[in-house]
């Protein structure tokens, strides 16, 4: 048996079921969103780390010339080295279902067991068999191929071979499929021989002994290993020491998770507003009861306790919905993100900490926010409470004036509804904020999308070519240019050279690999946006320009510095004259541009090319595809080995796919907050109707029809909706601007070009009107059901 005061709390909640259901739903949606987002975040962070540890990631990778097993075994015996393993990695291209893909081909041990960067078979044949291709599962998912399909595999300069896809494997050491365009494929050593590839290993991977997180320790061991390799008579071409035990995507996670957390908190805040409104309405409706209870001995604490319990009750009911629903949704959401990150999640995904937090928030938020209306309700003397003084403040002067002016055009009921909306201003404000938040997030997402595309277009404006033709090796320019130039539709060709370069840091250690391209300084094809400094001065200048993501990779570099670049083992000096904005994630290699003449003077290759940039008459995807096919045919006819052709339409398509992913996830969040806002509006309208039962009864007594009453409620809903529309538009401006900046900097290294989405304004108007109409249904029905007699007896 419960003491009577708690029984009152329970029965009062039951006495107004609509109100209780609405406030419960509203809190539930907030807690749900909060829980789903935070659980997903916690699980993804945890599982990404755990999965990455489990594959035994390499502490460092050293690229050298061909070496046998014995070298790896000898390295493993070095002090400080726990495991060492040789690997053979070659670039390749593969054709799946008529589509050529840039690929990275890695040789698997015959038993399929790697000790570093452990791979797991997923489907198909295992262990690996000869003359068959194994594909990383996330790579395969982004092609139209399937196990059993015949694919063409071609190594640079070698013959094409046809082989089946025999199975998929999971290799978490590969870059994210969403970010890279490369496909990761695996073969046996025998298959590589058959393909015409080299013998032996070219990369040495190792894991250090002792503290695997200690970067200094790893560096020290790496230097020893490098020395050992050099003593064996092989050059160290490149050394890569990644951030220890950190999956590459971990660098991207913070932005996404911070965004998610903000949205989760916003949803929770918005949902608490309806809870405040409800508690405030209950308190005002029960003013006299408060007075009576105070008169028979209930102190302020006891009374506050009762209404906090009411709020807690709403919270608990909400949790009963939100927790199970959240578990299901988290499964889907985390599953989706886990898929993007190429990790397997446990089932069910679950986080005790978040569950506790969710339960805490589900109860604490309504209870603590209830303190606010409770304080103001109980702040009045008992005499006032007893006399039931609840008369709402009169509408503000502005509204009075406005309705007087509008009064010439608007009909009476419309005017009354307008005034009604403004009667409880604090309540109106909370409803507006919740609704406007949803709207502004929606518009921010749409603006974000528009900004992404605007930025993309802008970055493509400086790229005036249509296709890039990468050759398998260098050729004399006179040999490759004429066959392509003779093709109809080709208007202009420029020859360039590619190389991988490593910045040599002041301490003599190699930095991260750069994608270097030597092109004529006076190029017609490449006019990127300059972020800092300037473009290359002209032919022959020993200058270099980097993409802006160099800042995070080589933070010591300043425009004006001389930079040492190690290219194919040969070091040369270049003056850094500028940084350019390139549309690429920070995790991708930085790009470096030098003048072709200056480059060939230093590194040789005068009159040769390995990459051609081609402009065509048509610029649409179809013309691009046609041109690519024609060029490929022509090159084959002339016996020139092709590596890959990239068209601008392909580039655009890849980026668009990435954007859709990002905005898709954001849209779901907008939807969640929007739902909270709509529930808030419904809740507030029904509270308003409930509070005005007597008034509505009087209107009916003096002859107002059902239609008139309904119109009153709907107009009030529309008034609030229109205000929320305006507020949402205003709020979305700074919000979307901030997001465009943060998002751009974090994911692309450049702030996005903020492009406000005007269609979003009209879409939001439509949504908000729809919301208002739906939100008015229940309250309007309740209002038309008010019977005169009942209404006049109502208290």
């Amino acid at each position, binding site marked *: *048996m419960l*003491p*009577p*005061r708690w*029984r*009152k709390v329970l*029965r*009062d909640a039951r*006495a107004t079921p609509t109100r209780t259901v609405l406030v419960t739903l509203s809190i539930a949606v907030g807690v749900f969103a909060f829980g789903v987002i935070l659980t997903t975040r916690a699980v993804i962070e945890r599982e990404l780390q755990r999965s990455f540890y489990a594959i035994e990631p390499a502490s460092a990778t050293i690229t050298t010339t061909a070496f046998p097993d014995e070298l790896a075994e000898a390295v493993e015996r070095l002090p400080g080295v726990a495991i060492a393993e040789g690997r053979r990695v070659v670039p390749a291209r593969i054709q799946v279902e008529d589509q050529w893909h840039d690929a990275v081909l890695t040789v698997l041990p015959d038993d399929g067991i790697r000790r570093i960067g452990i791979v797991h078979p997923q489907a198909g044949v295992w262990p690996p068999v000869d003359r068959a291709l194994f594909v990383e599962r996330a790579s395969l998912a982004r092609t139209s191929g399937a196990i059993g399909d015949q694919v063409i595999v071609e190594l640079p300069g070698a013959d094409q071979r046809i082989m089946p896809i025999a199975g998929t494997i999971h290799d978490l050491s590969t870059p994210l499929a969403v970010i890279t365009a490369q496909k990761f494929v695996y073969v046996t050593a025998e298959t590589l021989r058959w393909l015409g590839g080299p013998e032996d290993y070219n990369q040495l991977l190792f894991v250090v002994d002792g503290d695997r997180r200690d970067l200094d320790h790893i560096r020290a061991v790496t230097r020893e290993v490098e020395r050992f390799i050099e003593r064996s008579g092989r050059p160290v071409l490149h050394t890569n020491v990644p951030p220890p035990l950190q999956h590459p995507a971990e660098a991207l996670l913070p932005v996404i998770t911070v965004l998610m957390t903000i949205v989760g908190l916003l949803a929770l805040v918005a949902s608490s507003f309806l809870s405040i409104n409800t508690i405030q309405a209950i308190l005002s409706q029960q003013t*006299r*009861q408060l007075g*009576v*209870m*105070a*008169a*028979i*001995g*209930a*102190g*302020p*604490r*006891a009374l506050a306790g009762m209404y906090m319990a009411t709020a807690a009750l709403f919270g608990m009911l909400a949790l009963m919905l939100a927790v199970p629903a959240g578990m299901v949704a988290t499964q889907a959401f985390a599953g989706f993100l886990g898929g993007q990150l190429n990790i397997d999640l446990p089932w069910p995904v679950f986080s005790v900490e978040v569950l506790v937090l969710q339960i805490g928030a589900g109860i604490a938020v309504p209870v603590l926010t209830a303190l606010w209306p409770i304080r103001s309700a109980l702040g009045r*003397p*008992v*005499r006032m409470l*007893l006399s039931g003084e609840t008369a709402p403040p009169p509408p503000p002067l502005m509204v009075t004036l406005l309705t007087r002016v509008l009064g010439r055009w608007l009909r009476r009921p419309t005017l009354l509804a307008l005034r009604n909306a403004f009667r409880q201003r604090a309540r109106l404000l909370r409803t507006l904020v919740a609704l406007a938040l949803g709207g502004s997030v929606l518009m921010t997402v749409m603006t974000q999308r528009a900004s992404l595309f605007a930025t993309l277009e802008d970055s493509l404006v400086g790229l005036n070519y249509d296709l890039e033709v990468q050759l398998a090796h260098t050729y004399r320019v006179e040999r490759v240019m004429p066959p392509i130039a003779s093709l109809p539709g080709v208007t202009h060709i420029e020859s360039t050279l590619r190389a991988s370069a490593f910045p040599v840091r002041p301490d003599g250690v190699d930095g991260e690999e750069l994608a270097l391209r030597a092109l004529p300084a006076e190029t017609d094809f490449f006019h990127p946006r300059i972020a800092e400094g300037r473009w290359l001065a002209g032919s022959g200048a020993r200058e270099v320009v980097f993409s802006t993501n160099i800042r995070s990779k080589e933070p010591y570099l300043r425009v004006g510095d001389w930079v040492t670049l190690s290219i194919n083992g040969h070091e040369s000096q270049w003056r850094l004259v500028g940084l350019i904005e390139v549309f690429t994630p920070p995790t991708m290699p930085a790009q470096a541009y030098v003048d072709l003449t200056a480059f060939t003077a230093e590194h040789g290759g005068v009159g040769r090319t390995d990459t051609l940039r081609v402009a065509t008459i048509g610029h649409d995807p179809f013309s691009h595809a046609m041109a690519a096919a024609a060029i490929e045919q022509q090159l084959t006819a002339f016996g020139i080995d092709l590596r890959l052709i990239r068209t601008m339409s392909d580039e655009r398509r890849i980026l668009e796919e990435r954007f859709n992913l990002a905005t898709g996830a954001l849209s779901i969040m907008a939807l969640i907050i929007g739902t909270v806002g709509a529930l808030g509006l419904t809740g507030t309208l029904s509270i308003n109707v409930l509070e005005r039962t007597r008034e509505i009864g009087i209107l009916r007594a003096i002859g107002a029809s059902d239609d008139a009453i309904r119109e009153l409620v709907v107009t009030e809903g529309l008034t609030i909706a229109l205000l929320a529309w305006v507020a949402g538009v205003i709020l979305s401006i700074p919000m979307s601007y901030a997001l465009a900046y943060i998002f751009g900097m974090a994911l692309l290294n450049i702030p996005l070009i903020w492009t406000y989405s005007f269609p979003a304004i009209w879409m939001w108007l439509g949504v908000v009107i729809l919301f208002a109409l739906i939100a008015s249904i229940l309250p309007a029905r309740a209002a038309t059901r008010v019977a005169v007699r009942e209404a006049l007896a109502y*208290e």
Partner: protein
Amino acid sequence: MSSGEPLIELRAVTKAYTTAAGDYLALRGIDLRIAPGEFVAIVGKSGSGKSTLLNVITGIDRASSGEVLVAGADLMRLPEAHLAAWRGRTVGIVFQFFQLLPTLTALENVMLPMDFAGFGTLRERQARALALLERVGLADQAAKLPLALSGGQQQRVAIARALANNPPLLVADEPTGNLDSQTAEDVFQLFIELAQQGTTIVMVTHDAELARRAGRVVLVSDGHIVA
């Protein structure tokens, strides 16, 4: 408490209401002593200040000046937070419009003051509430909600509720004002019985007939006690 000491002592009490038109003096220097066990009827024209006087005695409202001593407590100095607890233990209040909580049964309404005062165990409260309902002749209506009771029944439940914590003082503002004459008589009879059992009663009434049957009549006029 010795019989010589008054249960209620008001000295030079004034009460001013602040209104838009300026301060309005509803009580203009009230001196009043009521001994334990007295049955006092307060009468006077509408607007003379009777309700204001009761509110000052029960601590529902604070006097503007003067001294208010009730059952040993100095109401002018008792902090707001302690006032409710004091009232719960010391004063039983009966209102003109009954003021039962609509979602609680008769029994629960009677238990409520004990709940707030922390009186006894839940079982003891229930037993006492039943006994009180028995006393006002409504034991059989204990499980009903107020809306299911007649006005007279509701007022008797309200009296049982006022007696819940066994207070030395019972205050009623026109308790029969909303009842027909027969029901009013029944309710008034209850007050007389209570007075006979030693409860101090202060009751505002417009009914001169009933007032005459009280032990003492106090006439209020324009914020003064005139008799």
